[in-house]
């Protein structure tokens, strides 16, 4: 297995708060990794640095052995790193189908912008159909995104990232704000889609049931540091993880 993502000595401070304190993390292709930590541990900051939304104060980020530190979200996205958001970032005034069409038109036609969008959409209609099917979005396809239930918005958000054929997919709390009955459903759909494409996945999660069920490896953050990294079962039983992160929740 080769390393898709590698970070070296990442540092990021917000005033006196250390959001990232010497992070050295390697992610292999074709693995699913969970990222846990209490609020303010620096989980989203890490995602934001990897995707270029924030620039680290110090340190380097390599994607497929290329230094991508300080590049813009757009440049990093184009290299194959896609993400979803804690608060779904979808096109709220457009329908589910249009959301996917826009994604496809950007993803499949980088150089060919002048092509009629219908042509693009027709050419790639199988991709759109496929994602609508995989994420059970068919019944919503003509609905405007702002009117969807939260779980469906999350799915749309993730499906927009997956349409782009990522090599690395970063999910920020894919099940937050989703009802307990729905959460396994959502994760099943996402993980099935990901596994069939052999994509490396890192997801931030508060829900330990989700972590146990879907990840092989887990990273635990505390105050911007990695305090545990290893097989999920071992990490979740590690004393400092129980003390600092899981606390009374288990």
């Amino acid at each position, binding site marked *: 297995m080769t390393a898709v993502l590698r970070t070296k000595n990442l540092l990021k401070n917000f005033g006196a708060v250390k959001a990232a304190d010497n992070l050295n993390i390697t992610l292999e292709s074709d693995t699913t990794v969970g990222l846990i930590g209490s609020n303010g541990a620096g989980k989203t900051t890490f995602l934001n640095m990897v*995707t270029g939304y924030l620039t680290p104060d110090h340190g380097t980020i390599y994607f497929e052995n290329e230094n991508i530190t300080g590049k*813009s*979200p*757009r440049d990093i*996205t*184009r290299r194959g790193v*896609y*993400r979803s958001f804690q608060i779904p*970032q*979808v*096109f*709220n*005034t*457009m329908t589910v189908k249009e959301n996917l*069409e*826009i*994604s496809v*038109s*950007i*993803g499949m*036609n*980088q150089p*060919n*912008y*002048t*092509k*009629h*969008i*219908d042509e*693009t959409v027709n050419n790639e209609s199988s991709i759109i159909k496929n994602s609508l099917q995989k994420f059970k979005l068919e019944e919503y396809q003509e609905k405007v995104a702002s009117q969807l239930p939260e779980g469906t918005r999350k799915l749309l958000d993730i499906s*927009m*990232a997956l349409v*782009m054929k990522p090599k690395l997919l970063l999910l920020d709390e894919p099940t937050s704000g989703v009802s307990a009955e729905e959460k396994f459903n959502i994760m099943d759909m996402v993980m099935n889609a990901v596994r069939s494409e052999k994509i490396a996945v890192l997801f931030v999660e508060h829900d330990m049931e989700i972590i146990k069920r879907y990840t092989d490896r887990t990273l635990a953050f505390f105050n911007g540091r990695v305090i545990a990294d290893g097989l999920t079962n071992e990490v979740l039983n590690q004393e400092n993880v129980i003390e600092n992160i899981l606390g009374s929740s288990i």
Partner: protein
Amino acid sequence: MDRTLAFISIGAVTLILSGYAMPQWAVFLTTVSLCYGTVVLGMILLVRTGLVSFGHGLYFCLGAYAAGTLKPFFGLSELVFMLIAAILVTTITSFALGFLLRKYRDIFFAMLSLAFSMILYGLLSKSTELGSTDGFNVTAETAFGIALSELEYGRYLIFVITVGTSWLCCTLLHLYLLSNKGKLAEAIRDNELRVEYLGASVNNIIHINYVISAVLAGLGGALMSISIGHIDPEMSYWTTSGEFVFITIMSGSSSVIAPFLGAAVFTSIRSFAYEYSPDTWQLLLGVTMLVIIVFLPEGLWSLFSKIKKKGSP
């Protein structure tokens, strides 16, 4: 065949055919509507991108002055060259200013545009060589090499060229709006962050759309100067830009035909009100605008699209 394109083409042909028999005042109204409509075409592209310019008079005026100064400065009075000059000058200016403006949104975009247009107004209204606040007269002596003054229907030829240019702009913009890149305008208005995270450059698209809208405004201005025969700095004054915003809001941004409809309604209200009650035409415009903002937030065009909702977009 695209229904909108068919409609535009039929409209253009109808205008050209009927222009021959139209009374002078109707030709004038149609010409002004077409020029304003062309400017507003660019404005709706910006609106789709989520931007409202309160300074598009800048390019309207620049286009007109570029066309008008060819004669005094270069001795050229060929209509085609005048239009090319307008395109060149507005492209270069908007390309340069675009690097700044593409970083601005909302009211700050509106205000910085306003500042630039007022800078041009300030310059032109004090430049004695260009007639200061009075401006100067513009004449196109030839069109495609044909001497217009000797031609019995010289004015008609100008009208035909105006219709043709508007038709071309309208068609091209329609095709652009349907392209992959054109569609991104709406995506940007909706959610810039997502567009960047899908791998497209928001700033580039805004920049491109800004240049397109500027060129359209410049062409509108150039055609206006040729048809009316006179230009002055007022074209760059904020109230002119305000009129464009007015028509844009009145039209709505859902179709490329809407700007011409809006412009026609605007010019008609203005001319007739000006004729019959010169002291209340602005009042009438203001009330119209409030009514549209309250009852038709998507513009006049939404009246039509509601009726033919079942049809193709």
